């Protein structure tokens, strides 16, 4: 059953704030094998003009992947997660994520389209501080492979 395109535009409630810690940024930088001091050392980050250690450009995925469960588990969409593959990903940053941020994520299903028996769902996750400052817009396209 193709996913109904009329579901495009639905927005899920903002997530509880995610508190970004310096150790989580260091752990993520270790996991991607990047020794950049801007991800680890406060003084190095400040020398570049940042108020605290910053996170790598793809770090927001940690938050948006969690937040996207609202969409993936939405019973009305009825997505079979075992058929989902990641098609595209994009991060547009208003500013870098940094240690000390408390961030909420609001997921919106932007487009639903079907092609070649597959459904393509593009979501936009807005990452915003609890003070209301926009930090990043993260777009993700999931491909739900058709059966057979």
């Amino acid at each position, binding site marked *: 059953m193709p996913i109904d395109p009329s579901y495009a535009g639905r927005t899920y409630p903002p997530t509880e704030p995610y508190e970004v810690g310096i150790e989580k940024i260091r752990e993520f930088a270790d996991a991607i094998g990047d020794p950049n001091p801007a991800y680890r050392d406060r003084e190095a980050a400040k020398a570049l003009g940042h108020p605290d250690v910053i996170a790598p450009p793809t770090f927001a995925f940690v938050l948006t*992947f969690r937040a996207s469960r609202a969409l993936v588990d939405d019973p009305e969409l009825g997505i079979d997660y075992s058929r989902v593959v990641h098609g595209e*990903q994009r991060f547009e940053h208003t*500013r870098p994520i940094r240690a000390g941020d408390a961030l909420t994520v609001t997921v919106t299903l932007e487009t639903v389209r079907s092609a070649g028996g597959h459904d393509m769902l593009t979501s936009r996750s807005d990452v915003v501080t609890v003070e209301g400052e926009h930090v990043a817009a993260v777009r993700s396209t999931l491909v739900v492979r058709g059966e057979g």
Partner: protein
Amino acid sequence: MAPSPDEVEVGTTVPGQTFTIRRADLVRYAGASGDFNVIHWNERVAKSVGLPDVIAHGMYTMALAARVVTDWAGDPGRVVDYGVRFTRPVPVPDDDRGAEVEVTGVVGAVLDGDRVRVDLTATHAGQKVLGRAQAVVQL
């Protein structure tokens, strides 16, 4: 040090890098990112769904490729926009050699406001694994 806008033009080469992905890297990335999809660590399950082997997280390959841009930019906070398509999986064998991903970059466009677009090419075993991989850097 970030490159000066005066010395960057369309066609400027961004130094490439080669990354080796081993099973242990995928386990570490799963833990750090929270993406525990079994196809990234369990060969039995990966093969049962038609994959040749355990495959790397697309997001892990995307993060590695970003390194070429962040190292060039000097300050990783200058990478203001970064997007890719996942066109082909990277199978990661259960051995000590792992899988190699080669990433090269070139300035594809000079934009307003001292911004440039870097076009990345990421290949594994001679085939592209990312499509339309582009990063915008604020110089």
